């Protein structure tokens, strides 16, 4: 019997799962569009149906720290998510929703994580409740933005500092919140292998943890609150092995490198999205089959939270029908197949254990390579991550072009395209949002805004944590764009990479 075969569910190194008891994962579908009012209506409907966890997709101007009336935001307001300019939008977004009933609000705030944390802290204060009474889940993984997701605002070192500000502030003040989703999903979507997905992600995590520890935080104050956010692709067995290998590597990293004492620090919680890049615009209904297989791989891999992509995502923002079917897909996997009645049911399979061991070895080797190159920040600054992803994305595209890799409907069993209904957004959303932003600017207490922005400037200049000053600024209705402009003055802009 190999060492791995003796591993037990719910025990170090958690290859076979962080819990010994079986159960159903959290179904966390991602949505959001248009104005805060439209998204609020959807949240209230979900709350009425008994859901207590939401995700908020933010539009690109918000994610990049631009107000909706910025010239650069033209055509993008409310497109891929909801537009948030000031606390007034958060008040509308959460209008009529008792915060203390919310188990988790997740967002894609990365380059603006500190503003997002400040907004919800300010909202809680205005409502007279302790922010620790509800759950907020901030992605806040800025490093992967520089090579895989693309909403970077400042130079990478400044981005790292601001992300750790959020981690530090939350660890010290609001421990119930999740201050970092260690994101491999976007790395995989940008073309990486499974090994790179985990190795790049954990190397980024090491950069955050090292800085947090350097600021005097204990690893056990940070690690238990973290999630990792991974992709589930079509490589069925290797993907199941990937979730297992990721848990084993994380557990050993926490124990051996960070000397964690709290077992929760070693237990990697996994949040999975099925792979958007595996979806095809051709024969889009085929994507339902693909996402079912990917959801099953995630279920067999023992993940904690799952989002299933909609079949029409290669065509546009999901339609209502497609979004509902995506939720039904994971409900069918969870409630009809019996897969949730056991933990790590494939553990002990010779091939799965071999794949898990091989992946673990390769992940450690790549992490060592990254460490030798100076760690994640150096690998971003030198372009190593970008070049590696570009190489593998190109190789993958070529393999589809040549037919070496089969994709049904794209290079095999190709048929004539048929017209498909796609989602269209109300074109008035952008104008409505700009009008409400201008109302906020005209009616707020300008002295309080000026004082708040001065506090942000002072904190950033001193190299101090900016979150408390951001709370002051957003409480006075300073906008996302105004706060980011102050920080850009200090940290400078991010120069785009032109390598390919």
């Amino acid at each position, binding site marked *: 019997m190999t060492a791995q075969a003796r591993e037990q569910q719910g025990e170090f190194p958690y290859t076979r799962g962080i819990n010994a008891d079986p159960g159903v994962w959290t179904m966390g579908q991602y949505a959001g569009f248009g104005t805060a009012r439209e998204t609020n209506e959807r949240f209230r409907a979900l709350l009425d149906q008994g859901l207590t966890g939401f995700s908020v997709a933010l539009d690109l101007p918000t994610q990049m720290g631009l107000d909706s009336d910025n010239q650069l935001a033209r055509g*993008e307001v409310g497109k891929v998510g909801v537009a948030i300019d000031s606390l007034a939008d958060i008040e509308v977004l959460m209008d009529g929703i008792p915060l203390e009933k919310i188990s988790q609000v997740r967002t894609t705030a990365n380059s603006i994580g500190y503003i997002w944390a400040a907004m919800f802290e300010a909202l809680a204060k205005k409502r007279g409740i302790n922010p620790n009474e509800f759950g907020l889940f901030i992605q806040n993984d800025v490093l992967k933005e520089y090579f895989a997701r693309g909403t970077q605002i400042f130079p990478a070192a400044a981005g790292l500092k601001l992300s750790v500000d959020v981690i530090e502030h939350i660890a010290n003040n609001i421990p119930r919140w999740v201050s970092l989703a260690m994101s491999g999903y976007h790395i995989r979507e940008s073309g990486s292998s499974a090994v790179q997905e985990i190795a790049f992600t954990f190397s980024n995590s090491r950069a955050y943890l090292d800085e947090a520890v350097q600021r005097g935080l204990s690893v056990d104050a940070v690690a238990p609150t973290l999630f990792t956010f991974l992709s589930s692709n079509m490589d069925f067995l290797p993907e199941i092995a990937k979730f297992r290998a990721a848990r084993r590597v994380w557990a050993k990293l926490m124990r051996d490198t960070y000397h964690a004492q709290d077992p929760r620090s070693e237990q990697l919680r996994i949040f999975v999205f099925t792979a958007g890049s595996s979806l095809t615009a*051709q024969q889009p209904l085929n994507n339902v089959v693909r996402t079912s297989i990917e959801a099953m791989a995630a279920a067999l891999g023992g993940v904690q939270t799952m989002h299933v992509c909609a079949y029409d995502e290669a065509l*546009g923002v999901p339609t209502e029908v497609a979004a509902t079917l995506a939720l039904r897909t994971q409900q069918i996997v969870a409630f009809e197949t019996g897969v949730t009645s056991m933990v790590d049911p494939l553990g002990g399979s010779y091939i799965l254990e071999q794949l898990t061991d091989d992946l673990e070895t390769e992940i450690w080797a790549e992490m060592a390579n990254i460490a030798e190159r100076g760690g994640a920040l150096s690998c971003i600054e030198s372009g190593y991550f970008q070049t590696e992803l570009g190489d593998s994305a*190109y190789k993958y595209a070529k393999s589809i072009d040549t037919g070496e890799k089969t994709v049904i409907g*794209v290079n095999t069993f190709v048929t004539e395209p048929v017209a498909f209904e796609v989602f269209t957004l109300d074109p008035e959303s952008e104008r409505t949002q700009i009008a409400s932003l201008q109302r906020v600017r005209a009616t707020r207490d300008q002295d309080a805004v000026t004082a708040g922005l001065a506090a942000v400037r002072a904190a950033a200049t001193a190299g101090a944590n900016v979150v408390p000053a951001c709370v002051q600024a957003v409480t006075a209705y300073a906008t996302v764009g105004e706060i980011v402009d102050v920080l850009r003055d200090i940290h400078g802009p991010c120069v*785009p990479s032109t390598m390919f």
Partner: protein
Amino acid sequence: MAGPIRVLVAKPGLDGHDRGAKVVARALRDAGIEVIYTGLHQTPAQVVDAAVQEDVDFIGLSILSGAHLTLFADVMELLRARKAGDIIVFGGGIIPEDDITELEALGVAKIFTPGATTASIVEWVEDHSRTLTASN
């Protein structure tokens, strides 16, 4: 047209998805075409400035965020304003069928949608550069 074909691959707007743009840039380069990539987050004015400065024959725009109608229109208008309307503009991304018709009406020569092979894009660029040569 003298010398090798020159193409500017550009990411206008705030969309951060550049996997496709970079794959196309590499495929064009592998075919012997000179390629310049703008990097992310370019304004239409920056794209047009780069195209004029680099004296390119083609601009390939990539947008997956849904802002294509606004951004393609701005690029086309600025090209005309800079008297650089002879630069052939093509594009790709998640672009619905109806919008493709609209973009073509703006003067965009071709939109490649998901699933287009790199070979088909290279071939299209080579074919259209021959058209340029023939008409010059």
